């Protein structure tokens, strides 16, 4: 397969080493961190309005977190060796240390918080279900079925404490991904101390957008009424954080343009040619400015519930696409230009290979399957909760 090259590339730059799977890695970890931070909002800052999404956000974070290492495993090959990262830790390798960041976040934060929050439900289920299901819940109770007032209160306090630890951990998790790119000093497209910060904010944006969309879709599927107050609140957060994210990225851009170091002409040319569609059109125009304007409109104008819901759905989808494009432009864009600043190569994505498009699509579907299982196992919504919305209300059916 001949790779089209323009100008001068060093031989080892012609073929991209980091494929679309490495695009998925920051994208998926970002969703984890973002979803968790949304959940923490409710818990730590006691934002009652977003409560309906609290558990859904936690489960979403877990589902995506379970998939997060898979792109790396597939990219590197030899998944059986990944344990060695823990057995013989390599302290001078940023990537190897990510294993510990990941493990900490999974075991010490997310699983604990979910377990404590669901313990009451798990105990109840272990007593009301039968067969294999019962066995699963029995194991999950760890053999203690005490759900007295006091024990639940203790869980609540401990859960709060874990959430407080969890927020910096979520920042660490995704900030670390940004750091892995930002610390590659040989690559001017990545090397920037702002990278971890931009990554965290874009992570929050994408995570909140995904939980918002999942909330809307799951509520429709369950034929319940969407809690519009909750939705408004989430959209408001999305809007604020998106504005911060966008200003940070613009600051980064301003800094680069004014500084105009030796890499600038080359990178500028790349943005105007190879990255024009994915960076300017998809990421900035469609994926950032449009959703910000749409969300801004819902803040200024007083629109009907239906229109707002439609706008939120549209803005949410655009946001997720935009953040995906951002990861793409960071990872792929950073490999398209030569270190000599004299040439550009092309990324040729394979289809049905280990690192091809098909694998990437599968990896993007997988978290939703995990989420489905988790939702079946640990329903995030109160079962006997809000009255079924259908029946009396003919307004049902709007998105």
């Amino acid at each position, binding site marked *: 397969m001949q790779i089209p090259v323009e100008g001068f590339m060093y031989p080892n730059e012609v073929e991209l080493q980091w494929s679309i799977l490495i695009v998925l890695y920051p994208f998926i970890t970002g969703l984890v961190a973002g979803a968790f931070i949304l959940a923490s909002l409710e818990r730590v800052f006691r934002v009652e309005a977003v409560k309906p999404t609290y558990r859904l956000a936690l489960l979403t974070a877990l589902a995506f977190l379970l998939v997060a290492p898979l792109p790396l495993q597939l990219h590197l090959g030899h998944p059986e060796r990944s344990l060695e990262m823990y057995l*013989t830790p390599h302290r001078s390798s940023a990537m190897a240390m990510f294993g510990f960041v990941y493990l900490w976040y999974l075991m010490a934060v997310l699983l604990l918080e979910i377990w404590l929050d669901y313990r009451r439900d798990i105990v109840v289920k272990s007593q009301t279900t039968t067969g294999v299901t019962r066995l699963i819940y029995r194991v999950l109770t760890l053999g203690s079925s*005490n759900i007295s007032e*006091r024990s639940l209160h203790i869980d609540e306090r401990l859960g709060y404490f874990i959430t407080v630890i969890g927020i910096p951990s979520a920042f660490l998790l995704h900030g670390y991904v940004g750091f892995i790119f930002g610390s590659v000093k040989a690559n001017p497209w990545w090397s920037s101390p702002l990278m971890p910060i931009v990554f965290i904010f874009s992570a929050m944006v994408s995570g909140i957008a995904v939980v918002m969309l999942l909330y809307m879709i799951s509520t429709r599927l369950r034929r319940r009424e969407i809690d519009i107050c909750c939705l408004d609140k989430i959209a408001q957060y999305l809007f604020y954080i998106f504005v911060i994210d966008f200003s940070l990225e613009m600051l980064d851009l301003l800094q680069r343009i004014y500084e105009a170091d030796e890499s600038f002409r080359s990178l500028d040319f790349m943005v105007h040619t190879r990255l024009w569609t994915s960076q300017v059109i998809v990421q900035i125009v469609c994926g950032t400015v449009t959703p910000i304007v749409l969300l801004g409109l819902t803040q200024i104008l007083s629109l009907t519930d239906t229109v707002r819901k439609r706008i939120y759905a549209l803005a949410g989808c655009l946001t997720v696409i935009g953040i995906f494009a951002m990861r793409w432009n960071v990872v792929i864009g950073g490999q398209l230009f030569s270190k000599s600043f004299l040439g550009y190569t092309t990324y040729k994505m394979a289809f049905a290979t280990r690192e091809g498009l098909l694998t990437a699509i599968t990896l993007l579907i997988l978290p939703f399957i995990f989420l489905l299982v988790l939702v079946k196992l640990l329903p995030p919504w109160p079962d006997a909760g809000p009255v079924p919305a259908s029946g009396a209300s003919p307004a049902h059916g709007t998105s």
Partner: protein
Amino acid sequence: MFKDIEHLVRLAAVMAIALIAFATMRALVVPRSFGEYGHYRGDAIAEIAARPVAFAGHDVCEACHIDVVEQKKQGKHVVVPCEACHGAQAKHADDPASVKPAKLDTAVVCARCHEANSAKPKGFPQVATADHAGGLACDICHQPHRPKIETPAATKPATEGKK
């Protein structure tokens, strides 16, 4: 009182078991000599040193293949060691009668060094093999040990120039 934190104690026990299991596994799996010199198994050095030598070095070859040495001296490939093309041949050098080097596919071997690439020094002879040879093996025209092709004017009997 204890009853209300019993589940947490159990959780702590599960975590402790996991940690102990990890520590045990680490003690069992990580090789003794790991980290002796660096982030690798110290014993690996001795093991690698004990492996049989694969490359003999061109001095060894030249002791027997004097004719090839003479030929090579006349061309620029004099600087290229035998095993850069023929591959590791220590076994052959030890026992030439029973181990014979495999025949080379020049279309592959020569392209490894001579395929045109803008990153190579300008002065290095390089060709776009697809255009230059059109899929033919290089040793149809070039004699591998003395690759320069004499001008047709000086055509000699078929023993020279072409192999």
